[in-house]
C-alpha cells in the first residue's frame, strides 16, 4: 500500500488510451472476423466466437461485483444455469404441454423470465451472504450455487443430470435466431449493450459507492453510507445480467444440463475475470478470449488439458508479483 507508483499522471493517460485502442480493435475484430468465418463456411469457429461473446457477458457481470465491488462470488455460474433453464423449461412445455402459464417460445418472455428469476435469486442469496465477510462470503455463495445445481439435478421432469434438449430457439421479431450469424450478432449486440451499461454504472454515483465499499467498508459507513443496501443492489444487477447471458447460452447450446452451473463453471468465470484484469470493464472479455483459446489449444494437444491449465493457474497466482490482486492493480492502471 505504501509504495509509490512509478507511473505519473502522464504515463497513466497514455496507458489508458492504449487500453482504449486495444478495446476498440478487439470489438471491431469481434464484429468483422465472425462474418468472414461464416462466409468461409467454418461453423466451428463461429460457435467458438458465439460462446466467447456469451461467456464475456457473464464474466463482465461477475466483474461488476468481483472486480469493482470486491465481492468474491463463487456461485456465479448458477445464474447462467437459471437463465438457460428459463429458456429450456418454457420451450419444453410449449412442446409437450402442461404448465400452460409459462409454455412459450417467445424470446421476450424467456429473457424477462431469466432476468427476473436471476434477480430474485440474487436478492435472496445476496441478502444473506452480504451480512457476512471474507471466507464466509466465498463459501456461502459457492454453497448456494451448488444448491441450484442439486435442485436441477433433482428435477426428473427436466432431465435431471442428463440435461434437457432445447428443440427450438427463442423467437424474436425481426431476428432469425436459428441463423448462426444472426444469432451471433444478437449476442454481440448484447455484449456491447452490457459493456456500455456496466461502464455507466461503475462511473456513476452508485459505482463510486460500491468501489468505495470494496476498499474500506468501515470507512464508508462512517462517512454515512449504508453499504449493505448498495452492495446488495450491485449483487442483484450482476445476477440479472448473468441470467440474461444464461438465456443466450441456453439458446446457443440447445442442450442444457446442471453441469453448466457446477462450481467448476463458477471457477472458470472467476478465472476469466482475474485473467483479463478485474479493474477494467472490458478486461473480462480479454480473459474469456484467453480462456477459450487456451481451452482449444491445450485440448488439441491432450485430453488431459486440465493439468497444464491447473498448473498455469497456480503459477500465475504464485509468481505474478503481488499475487493476482497485484496484477489487477497493474492492469487497471
Amino acid at each position, binding site marked *: 500500500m505504501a509504495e509509490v507508483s512509478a507511473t505519473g499522471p502522464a504515463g497513466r493517460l497514455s496507458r489508458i488510451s492504449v487500453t482504449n485502442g486495444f478495446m476498440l480493435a478487439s470489438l471491431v475484430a469481434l464484429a468483422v472476423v465472425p462474418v468472414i468465418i461464416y462466409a468461409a463456411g467454418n461453423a466451428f469457429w463461429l460457435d467458438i466466437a458465439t460462446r466467447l461473446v456469451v461467456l464475456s457477458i457473464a464474466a463482465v457481470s461477475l466483474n461488476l461485483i468481483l472486480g469493482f465491488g470486491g465481492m*468474491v462470488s*463463487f456461485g456465479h455460474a448458477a445464474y447462467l444455469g437459471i437463465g438457460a433453464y428459463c429458456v429450456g423449461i418454457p420451450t419444453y412445455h410449449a412442446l409437450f404441454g402442461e404448465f400452460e402459464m409459462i409454455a412459450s417460445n417467445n424470446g421476450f418472455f424467456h429473457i424477462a423470465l431469466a432476468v427476473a428469476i436471476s434477480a430474485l435469486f440474487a436478492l*435472496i442469496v445476496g441478502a*444473506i451472504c452480504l*451480512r*457476512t465477510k*471474507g*471466507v*464466509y462470503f*466465498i*463459501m*456461502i455463495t*459457492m*454453497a*448456494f450455487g*451448488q*444448491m441450484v445445481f*442439486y*435442485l436441477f*439435478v*433433482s*428435477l*426428473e*421432469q427436466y432431465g435431471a443430470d442428463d440435461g434437457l434438449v432445447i428443440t427450438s430457439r427463442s423467437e424474436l421479431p425481426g431476428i432469425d435466431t436459428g441463423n448462426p450469424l444472426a444469432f451471433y450478432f444478437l449476442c454481440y449486440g448484447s455484449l456491447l449493450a452490457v459493456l456500455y451499461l456496466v461502464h455507466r454504472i461503475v462511473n456513476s454515483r452508485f459505482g463510486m459507492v460500491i468501489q468505495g465499499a470494496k476498499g474500506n467498508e468501515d470507512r464508508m459507513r462512517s462517512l454515512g453510507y449504508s453499504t449493505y443496501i448498495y452492495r446488495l443492489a450491485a449483487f442483484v444487477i450482476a445476477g440479472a445480467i448473468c441470467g440474461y447471458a444464461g438465456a443466450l447460452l441456453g439458446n446457443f447450446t440447445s442442450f442444457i444440463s446442471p453441469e453448466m452451473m457446477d*462450481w*467448476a463453471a463458477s*471457477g472458470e468465470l*472467476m*478465472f476469466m475475470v*482475474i485473467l483479463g484484469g478485474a479493474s477494467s470493464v472490458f478486461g473480462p472479455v480479454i480473459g474469456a478470449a484467453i480462456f477459450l483459446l487456451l481451452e482449444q489449444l491445450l485440448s488439441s494437444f491432450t485430453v*488431459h488439458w*486440465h*493439468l497444464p*491449465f*491447473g*498448473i*498455469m*493457474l*497456480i503459477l*500465475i*497466482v*504464485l509468481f505474478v508479483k503481488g*499475487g*493476482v*490482486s497485484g496484477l489487477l492493480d497493474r492492469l487497471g492502471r
Partner: protein
Amino acid sequence: MDASLVLIQFLNGMQLGVLLFLLASGLTLTFGIMDFVNLAHGSLYMIGAFFCASLTFWTGSFVWGLLLAIPCTALVGLAVELVVIRHLYARDHLDHVLATFGLILCFDTLTQLVWGPEGISVPLPSWLDGQVTLPGDIVFPTFRLVIILGGLVVAGGLYWLVNHTRLGMLIRAGASNRTMVGALGIDIQTLFTAVFALGAVLAGLAGMLIAPITEASIGMGNEIIITAFVVIIVGGIGSMKGAFIAALMIGLIDTMGRSFLDDLFKLVMSTEAAETSAPAVSAMLIYILMAVILAIRPQGLFPPKVR
C-alpha cells in the same frame, strides 16, 4: 414409516455425519490457524480413497491398505504444503481460492492419469462385509457401524489432541493469536505444515472409509467438499466443536430428508405433489438450513471467541 426404518436411516445419517466431520475438521483447523481457504481439501479425500484402493489390492487386505494409505496421504499433504500452499498464507482469500482451484484441476487429472478414468471398488474382508443385528432387531451393515464408531473415536482423539497436548495448546493459541505463538519461539512454519498434514490425513481417512461403499472415483471429493463447507459455515469457521455438532446435524438432516420428506409432505399435500416436490426440497434442505442459521447468526452456531 416404521420405527426400525427410522433408526436405520438415523444410523446412516450418523455415518454421513462422522465422514463430514473428518473433512470439516481439517478445513476448520487450517482456516482457524492459518486463515487459509483450501478448496482442494476434497482432492485429498479422493487421493486417500485411491491410495486405499491400490494398497488394498497390493496387500490383499483392506485393513493393511487403509493403514498404509494414511502415511501416503500425509506425504501428499506435506508435498502440496511445501510446493504450493505455504507460499499462499500471506496472500488474500481470492488468491487461496484461485490457486487451490488450480490444484483441484491438477489432482483430478493426475488421478485419472495414474488410476484411469473408471472408479475402483474396494473389497471388504468378510468379517466387515456382513450385517449385524442391533438391539430392537435392527439389521445394519457391519462396516457402516465401524465407520460411525471409528469416526467417533477419531473425534475423541482430536478433542484430546486440541485440549490436552502441547500441539493442541499451540493450535488453540495460534487460532486466537498468531503473533503470540511466534513470540513463544515456536517455528510457526513447522506448526502450519504439521496442521496441514493432519488435515490431509483426516480428509484422506474419510475417503478411505467411504471407498468400500461408493468406490474410489474421479471428482468424488468435489461433491462432498461443498457439504463440508456448509458444515463449517453452520458450525462457525475455526471451531472444532461447531464442526462436530454441525457435521452430525447436517448428516442426519440430509439423510432423513431424502428418506422421509415425501412421507412428511404427503400429510399436507396430495401424493403426486409430494412426490414431485420432495426430491427437490430434500436436495436443497441443508442449504436452506444454512441460510436460516446464517440469517439468525451470520458467524455460525459456534463462532471462535477471538476473530
